[in-house]
């Protein structure tokens, strides 16, 4: 396996007496695609939020590029190079495509010392990014509220491809996409990974996991129930891990 990018060491999260995560340990390598599977309520989204800085873990530690890492806010995680695409879309529907694409990272130029939005430059970048991904949106100046679910998700996916970073977390990214767009999305993930970026993708669809992932990690009841290379397992074996009928193939990180 390649050099580890992110290592999770016994990460746990309690909500009062409820243990959402009992202690999760696994790692993600550079350029590796890890599919995170598990039943509803297994704790997948909680885990993603902890890595992305939206939640603080109750205990445990994380190493990012070999250094102790804990993001107190999404801004810190972003600064460290972690991009996240959330399950419920994170777009501001009251502004246009360009504004959403650059949310929080606007290109500016100085005018009398004051940062001013450089709209033409931003529009150009978005146009290029969307065109290369084959996404068609009639006008980049339309407010997102007037776009379809698929178009919205395309904006988010293209955003992470463009900004890249070092690690990308995708929480059910294809929920609103059609067949063709999903295929393109999966291609995008492979393309991103080939640049040496680590990818964690949460999905419910076994077929997607087997199509795109190098390794499959199964979470069940707040612990890692399986951590296997894709080519050494089968969908049936993974389903058994998810439902808890077997612990074959289970093992620690690495």
């Amino acid at each position, binding site marked *: 396996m390649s050099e580890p990018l992110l290592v999770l060491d016994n990460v746990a999260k309690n909500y009062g007496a409820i243990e959402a995560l009992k202690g999760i340990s696994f790692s993600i390598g550079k350029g590796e695609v890890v599919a995170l599977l598990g039943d509803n309520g297994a704790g997948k989204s909680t885990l993603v939020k902890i890595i992305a800085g939206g939640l603080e873990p109750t205990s445990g530690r994380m190493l990012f590029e070999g250094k102790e890492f804990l993001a107190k806010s999404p801004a810190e995680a*972003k*600064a460290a190079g972690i991009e996240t695409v959330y399950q419920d*879309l994170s777009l501001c*529907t*009251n*502004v246009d495509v360009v504004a959403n694409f650059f*949310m*929080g*990272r606007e290109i*500016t130029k100085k005018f009398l010392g004051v940062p001013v939005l450089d709209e033409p430059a931003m529009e150009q970048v978005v146009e290029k990014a969307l065109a290369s991904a084959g996404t068609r949106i009639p006008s980049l100046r339309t407010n997102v509220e007037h776009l379809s679910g698929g178009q919205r998700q395309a904006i988010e996916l293209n955003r992470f491809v463009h900004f890249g970073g070092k690690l990308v977390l995708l929480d059910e990214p294809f929920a609103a996409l059609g067949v063709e767009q999903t295929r393109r999305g999966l291609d995008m993930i492979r393309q991103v990974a080939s640049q040496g970026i680590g990818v964690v993708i949460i999905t419910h669809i076994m077929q997607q996991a087997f199509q795109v992932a190098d390794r499959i990690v199964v979470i069940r009841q707040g612990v890692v129930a399986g951590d296997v290379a894709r080519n050494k397992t089968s969908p049936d074996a993974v389903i058994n891990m998810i439902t808890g009928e077997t612990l074959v193939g289970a093992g620690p990180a690495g």
Partner: protein
Amino acid sequence: MNPRTRHALEFVLDNLVWFMLVFVLVVFSISIPNYFQLGIFANIIEASSVLGVMSIGLALVIITGHMDLSVESVAALGAMAVGILFCSAGIGLGVQLDPEWLMVPVSLFIALAVGGIIGVINGYLVVKVKMSAFIITLASYIWVRGLVLVISGGRSAQDLAPAIRWFGIQRLLGLPLTAWIAIACFVVFSLIMAKTPFGRHLVMIGGNETATFRAGIRVNRNLVIAFVLAGAIAGLAGWVLAIRTSGATANLGVGLLFNAFAAVVIGGVSLKGGVGTLPGVYAGVLLLSAINTAINLMGLPANFTQVIHGLLVLAAVLLDAFKQTIRQRLA
């Protein structure tokens, strides 16, 4: 629909208040004798300067998806602070500074600081204690007005120092400087909202706070700044109010809040947040002022003003819903 008509239609929708303003001015000019005079139009702008400044702060906070009910009381407190210090009659202390012009920046600073401090309190409570902005600023609306009563003892200050008063008397192109201050504020804050990342972030926070937080925008910091700006701008409105009335009374500016709300809503700002522009708000302010002037000229009892303002707000909200349906058809 071809792109050009679509473009034109969108332009009309985006600037609907301005068209309404022009329409109202034309109708009044035709139907009311003596309405069509430069002096009347100058008066409309002049009379709206305090309301205009105050509406900017209110609009900023509403666009971020929050609420500031305290702007009226904050303006009164700012005016009272300036009045007590720099008035020579009533409860005024008649503080003199040498040279005289120094009183302008000092009084302005005091008004802005008073407003800013209350903005910090509002913002801190909303962001850190996570209480509803409506409740917190309602409380501020009450206690700040109480503070005005306490420090004035219910009495008034008159005869503002001439050096400060100069802003209300000196005219440029037929308008007193106080009106130019309001116009300048609208220009500056319109540019901030439309052209800077800060303004863009405020609009996006109003649209989807969670999304902006996840995108790494410092939501809390931006919100506090918005509340501080609203407070300081309200303080500025108080400063202008003190100049226009040449002093301050304990009940100065009572009722302005509701006019400011009316102007903001008529100007196309959605109370749900995330929607609206400041030029629209200025058009809303001018529209209210134009109607007030018409009521005066027609010799209607002033009591009608409230009825008409209320109906206007209703019309604005209905119009907003109508605009939404048209927009959906366009998309």
